[in-house]
């Protein structure tokens, strides 16, 4: 176990370092900004992955995504705080607090009810934001120029590189921490809760508390991702941050990535973003068609997500095996 864990940590570190170096020295600006957007979303997807391992899927995490994004944007607009070292943690903390509060209710729900209750909460926020004139209603408003250590820049490409390096660093940290967490006793409860709640209770752990903790964690990560997204786009609006389609996208990427590893969301998000961009270039009116068809293909033919392909290619069968088992009934397994 220690051996494979080290391998993942090394892999994560090398991977993020390579991506960061490539980004600074090789990649063109457009790809850099795609990666920035993809990794922002990936932070949220890591949160959803923790929940998915527990067997729970939320159709309302756009709530936390939007909260994070609006926290960053409003700190800049209302209080003039543009320091990312303050605004981004604030986004995560605020989302976590809301997640903690709602968690008391949500932790009692499973399956479709869990998904629906989250959806309802996120649509409540959507309904409020759409009708709030002072926050720009459906148009939203633009995010103030971010600063770090009090330094800001008007040079768009410098800002892009800075944000990109930031998201790589945070992404690496989050991936490592979540990986450690999943390896810990508390983290192992994720799969245990999914497999048999009653047994977990008999072992002396509280299922409700375990789920609550993971819910808060996913809320914080999703808020952080939303914060980065606000900075990456320079604009927040309800439609692209809080509507139910955003939640759908996040769940989509989770399925696309597969539950196999904490690295998977980053790869999955990048694939999603590139898929969307190319689909849009190829057929402007039919990009959703391509994205939707991809989703269906994955559900039918690659239920372990992209990660299962990767682990199959690199021959990590035995290491990936117990992790890539899916939270669904064993009936109708597509690939053994």
């Amino acid at each position: 176990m220690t051996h494979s864990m080290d391998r993942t940590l090394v892999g994560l570190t090398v991977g993020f370092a390579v991506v960061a170096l490539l980004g600074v020295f090789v990649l063109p600006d457009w790809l850099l900004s795609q990666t920035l957007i993809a990794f922002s979303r990936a932070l949220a997807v890591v949160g959803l992955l923790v929940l998915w391992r527990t067997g729970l899927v939320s159709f309302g995490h756009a709530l936390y995504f939007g909260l994070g994004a609006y926290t960053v944007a409003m700190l800049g607009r209302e209080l003039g705080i543009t320091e990312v070292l303050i605004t981004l943690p604030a986004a995560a903390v605020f989302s976590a607090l809301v997640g903690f509060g709602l968690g008391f209710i949500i932790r009692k729900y499973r399956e479709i009810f869990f998904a629906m209750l989250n959806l309802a909460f996120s649509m409540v926020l959507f309904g409020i934001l759409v009708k709030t004139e002072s926050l720009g209603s459906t148009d939203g408003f633009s995010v103030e120029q971010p600063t770090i250590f009090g330094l800001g820049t008007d040079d768009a490409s410098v800002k892009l590189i800075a944000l990109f390096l930031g998201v790589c660093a945070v992404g690496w940290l989050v991936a490592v921490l979540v990986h450690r967490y999943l390896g810990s006793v508390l983290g192992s409860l994720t799969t245990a809760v999914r497999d048999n709640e009653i047994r977990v209770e008999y072992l002396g752990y509280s299922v409700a508390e375990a789920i609550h903790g993971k819910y808060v964690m996913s809320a914080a990560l999703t808020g952080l991702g939303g914060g980065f997204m606000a900075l990456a786009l320079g604009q927040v609006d309800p439609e692209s941050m809080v509507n139910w389609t955003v939640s759908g996208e996040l769940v989509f990427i989770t399925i696309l990535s597969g539950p196999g590893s904490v690295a998977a969301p980053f790869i999955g998000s990048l694939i999603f973003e590139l898929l969307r961009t190319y689909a849009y270039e190829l057929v402007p009116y039919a990009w959703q068609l391509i994205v939707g068809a991809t989703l269906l293909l994955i559900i039918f033919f690659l239920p372990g997500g992209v990660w299962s392909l990767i682990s199959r290619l690199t021959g990590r069968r035995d290491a990936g095996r117990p992790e890539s088992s899916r939270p669904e009934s064993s009936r109708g397994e597509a690939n053994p």
Partner: protein
Amino acid sequence: MNLALTILVEGLGYASYLFIVSLGLTIIFGVLKILNVAHGAFYAWGAYFCAFLIGEFSAMGVSDLGTMIAIPIAALVVGIVLGSAIERTIIRNLYGRDEVLIVLATFGLFLVLEDVILLLFGVDPYFAFQPTYAMPGVQIGGIYQDGYKLSMIALSLVVGIISWVVLNRTHWGKLVAAIIFDSDLAVAMGINVRRVFYVVFVAGAVLGALGGAYIAPTISVAPGFGVEVIVLSFAVVVIGGMGSIAGAAIGALMVGMLRAYAVLQWPEIELFVVYAVMAAVLIFRPEGLFAPAKARKI
């Protein structure tokens, strides 16, 4: 008094099409246990096809009232063709898979179907107001009411009654009830569960398309309008209790009235209030306000 009446009629009109759409969603969920996000696509397809047909009929010289024939045609064609195609290719292969995964598959389906609309019908909005001209306005309590809206209320009543009779008073209804209770046992009793699933799915699709087709003449049919209906009908179904006809009616009435009240009196809470009620129902009565009592199975 006038205000209350306006809210009542507006709310009923709004509730009536929500009820038709949600009814389709709820019977599919009740029987197949599938929460069908693609239902919004049936709605959008019904609306587009209906608006297109009305335009064609009108160009052929059919009278304004005559163009209404486009509504049932659109509902049946879209529901049966699209519903069958989807059940046969996608849904059929998902039975027994994880509930949430099925929702996601129908989400993918929804994205695909939305864009096929754009490819077929283009991005420009369709206007097909002819049927609304054909309906005479009616004075109720001194207020002039749109006749088409009133006909929608009547239609939803008819649809509701027919569904109730079919499910409670016919052989088919008994089969469905048996499957809802325990589909494995139903198979053992010799019921062709797959066939019932198929028929129910298509019936649900027809209802979704009917809702869209009937609303089409009152709005401009433009891309992306199926998105909002999905969550709204989710809210309706959750409020009333998933899988119950009476629940869909109550849910639609509540959402319709709340929304009519909000639009007229307090526009800021228009969307918020619907989902707040949905959340409240899930918290205090997750099985829905009017869910049928279920025998507990182990």
